[in-house]
């Protein structure tokens, strides 16, 4: 078990919640860590802003910093109109960020290593863009697929390519987060597995194990960066896509 790098992604049913037909809906370790993330974020944000200090304390500064960070990201990519999506983008960013960070702690489960989760998040973004774009701009939203200044005889081809490009968004959006987290966690586990395998060989193994151990430490640092970066990339792509719904004109 210790040497199996895939074992960490196993879904374990903790207790059953409901049964629909023959499908059992259970509370899993994945759901547990989502709950931990949501509870952690809520406690952090509510607790740190409880005092409403004019001069913020340490925790309040952190909460204000996270607000400013996401708000700046939205303003720079989707304009001030994008701020109406602030609650959504902030929730997404904090959720992914905390889940990625909690997943770095040994013996925890990383929810974002399952494509079901990232695909659900990416599809939510996709449908919000689609529905909000159509609701706000009506049929002008489809102007997104018709670039200006294209000769009429190749326009059908260009429109087809633009539509496919639009449809491919949730795939690249979800796969990027999922694959980065999955690859990172497997690499970490493989190198950590080398340490235990080598130490089983006696003194010579102990000497040899220094290298993978050092690499594991270095990789943990790299993964911390990746975890934060991918949460940011997920949020900024959400903003870029939302920008298309707000300003569909090319």
């Amino acid at each position, binding site marked *: 078990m210790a040497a199996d790098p895939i074992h960490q992604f196993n879904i374990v049913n903790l207790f059953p919640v409901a049964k629909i037909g023959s499908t059992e809906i259970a509370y899993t370790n994945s759901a547990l860590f989502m709950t931990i993330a949501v509870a952690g974020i809520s406690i952090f944000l509510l607790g740190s802003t409880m005092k409403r200090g004019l001069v913020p304390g340490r925790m309040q500064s952190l909460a204000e910093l996270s607000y400013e960070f996401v708000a700046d990201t939205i303003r720079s990519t989707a304009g001030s109109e994008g701020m109406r999506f602030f609650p959504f983008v902030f929730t997404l960013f904090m959720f992914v960020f905390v889940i990625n960070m909690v997943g770095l702690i040994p013996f925890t489960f990383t929810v974002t290593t399952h494509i079901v989760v990232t695909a659900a998040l990416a599809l939510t973004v996709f449908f919000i863009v689609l529905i909000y774009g159509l609701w706000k701009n009506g049929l002008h939203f489809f102007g997104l697929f018709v*670039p200006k200044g294209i000769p009429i005889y190749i326009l059908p081809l260009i429109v087809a390519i633009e539509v*496919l*490009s639009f449809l*491919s*968004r949730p795939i*690249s959006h979800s796969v*990027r987060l999922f*694959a980065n987290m999955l690859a990172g966690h497997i690499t970490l586990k493989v190198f950590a597995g080398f340490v235990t395998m080598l130490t089983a060989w006696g003194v010579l193994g102990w000497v040899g194990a220094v290298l993978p151990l050092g690499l594991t430490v270095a990789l943990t640092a790299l993964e911390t960066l990746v975890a934060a970066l991918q949460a940011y990339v997920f949020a900024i792509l959400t903003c870029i896509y939302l920008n298309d719904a707000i300003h569909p004109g090319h």
Partner: protein
Amino acid sequence: MDTSGIARGFRLSTELVAGVVVGAMIGWLLDRWLGISPWGLIVFLLLGFAAGVVNVIRAAGVDPNAKQD
């Protein structure tokens, strides 16, 4: 967007693959529904590849016609 090299490379490759995958998926479904195999797959795989390249050009930020705002 200034990110590390591996993240940037990864982003661009997923953009390309996503375009091809969506094209192949739509082509395959059209083939099944309309019974026009293999034309749906041929046409939409090529269109999907083009869409993937468009995605990559946009993601790389080298689009000469990019909107200025």
